[in-house]
C-alpha cells in the first residue's frame, strides 16, 4: 500500500491509525533516510497507544520504552556495533508482547519476526510518501484495514 502524506500531522495521523489497529507482537521496520519522518510517525504511534509523555528520537539512547495500551519500544540500531550489543539491549524480549518500532533494522535482518510490517518513508514533492509492505498474515490484515480508510 502506498499513501501520500502532506505534512507532519498527516504522518502522525498514519502512525495513530496503525496504533489503533495494533496487536501484541506488531513490529514496524521503519525505513527512510535521515529526516524522512520516522520519529514523527513514531510520535503518532505513541499517540494512538495512549503513551503519556513525549516520544523523542531514540538515536542517542538507542532504545526508548513507553507505557501505553500496549508497551511500545522505539529503537534506532544505527550506532549499534554487533550482535552481542543487540542482546545487551533487550529488544528481543519486547518483540513478542508489545509494539516495536525499529529504525535501521536492515543492519540486523535476523532480528525481525517473519510477520512484520515494513514502512518506508520518502520525500515526495512538498510532502512524503509512505509505502507499507505486509510480510505476513497479521500485518496484512492491518494494512487491509488501513487501506479501507483511504
Amino acid at each position, binding site marked *: 500500500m502506498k499513501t501520500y502524506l502532506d505534512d*507532519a500531522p498527516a504522518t502522525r495521523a498514519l502512525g495513530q491509525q496503525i496504533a489503533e489497529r495494533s496487536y501484541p507482537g506488531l513490529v514496524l521496520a521503519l525505513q527512510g*533516510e*535521515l*529526516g*524522512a*519522518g520516522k*520519529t*514523527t510517525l513514531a*510520535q503518532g504511534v505513541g499517540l494512538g497507544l495512549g503513551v503519556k509523555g*513525549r516520544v*523523542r*528520537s531514540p*538515536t*542517542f*539512547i*538507542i532504545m526508548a520504552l513507553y507505557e501505553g495500551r500496549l508497551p511500545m519500544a522505539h529503537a534506532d540500531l*544505527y*550506532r*549499534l*556495533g554487533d550482535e*552481542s*550489543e543487540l542482546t*545487551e*539491549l533487550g529488544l528481543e524480549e519486547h518483540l513478542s508482547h508489545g509494539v516495536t518500532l525499529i529504525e535501521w533494522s536492515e543492519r540486523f535482518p535476523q532480528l525481525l519476526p517473519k510477520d512484520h510490517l515494513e514502512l518506508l518513508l520518502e*520525500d515526495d514533492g512538498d510532502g512524503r510518501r509512505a509505502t507499507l509492505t505486509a510480510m505476513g498474515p497479521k500485518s496484512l490484515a492491518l494494512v487491509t484495514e488501513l487501506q479501507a480508510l483511504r
Partner: protein
Amino acid sequence: MRVLGIETSCDETAASVVSADGVLSDVVYTQTVHAAYLGVVPELASRAHAEKLASVVQDALDKAGIEKPDAVAATSGPGLIGAVLVGLSMAKGLALGWGVPFIGVNHLEGHLLSPMLEDPAPEFPFLGLVVSGGHTTLYLAKSLGDYEEIASTVDDAAGEAYDKTARVLGLGYPGGPLIDRLAQRGDPLAIPLPRPKVKGSQDWSFSGLKTAVRQRHQKFPGDKPEDIAASFQRAVVEVLLQRVRVAAKETGVTRLALAGGVAANSELRAAAQAMKGIQVFLLSLIHI
C-alpha cells in the same frame, strides 16, 4: 568537607574532588572507541568505563592530595543505564569501604548547577539552558533542589541535530565541534533554513531543521559545506535564545546560565553574551 564525585553517564569517565574552596582535582578520560560508529555505543561505553574508572578515581585523589574523601557522590541517572551503573556501583562500594556517606546526583541537576563552579556564580533564581547530545531543556532554577522545566525539545536534542547534520555533510563525530569549526569560515545567511516552531507550544523542535539540511544538501550539492554549517548553527542558536528571551520576559529573571556540551559552542556563547538585558554565566571550557 571534601567530596569525591564520579560521572560515567555517557562517553567520559570522570572523577573530581571538590571542597568549599573549589575544585581540587578534575580528571577526565574521553573514550575514543566510538568514533568509528558516529555516536556513543552503550555497551562499548560501559566496558570502557569499567576499564578506566579505578585509575581515574585514584588519579583524582592523588591530584587532590588526599587518601580518603568525606563523602562520595556519583551521577545516578538519567543516562546510558549500563554506563551509569559502572560509576554508581564504584561510588557506592567506595563509600561503604571508607564508611562515608554516598550521594546520588541527578545528571541534569549536575549540568544545571555546574555554572556555580565559576566565579562569579549565578545567584538563584536563574534560567538554566542545558543543551547536549541527549537533552535540550530550559529550567527556572529557583533554589537548590527547586527547578521548573520551562521548555524542552519535542523530538531531537540540539546536540543530536548537530551530530546528524555532520552525518549529512560527511564530517564525522561528534558533530558539535566539527560544525562549529567549519561554520567559522562560512556565511550564516547563505542558506535559507527554517526556524522550526511547535504549534501551540513554546517548546523546541530540531527534527525539521535536520530534515531541511538534508533536503537542501540533496537539491543543491554544490553548496559550500561551511555555508551549510554556518547557516545551520545560526538557526540553532537563534531558536534556543529566542525561547530564553521569552522566558526572561515571562519570569522577570534575567540571569542565564549555559550548561551541557553544546554550551561550548562558540556562536551560542557569543550570541548569549550579546543579549540585551540578560546577564550570562558561562562555564569555562575545561568545566564542560
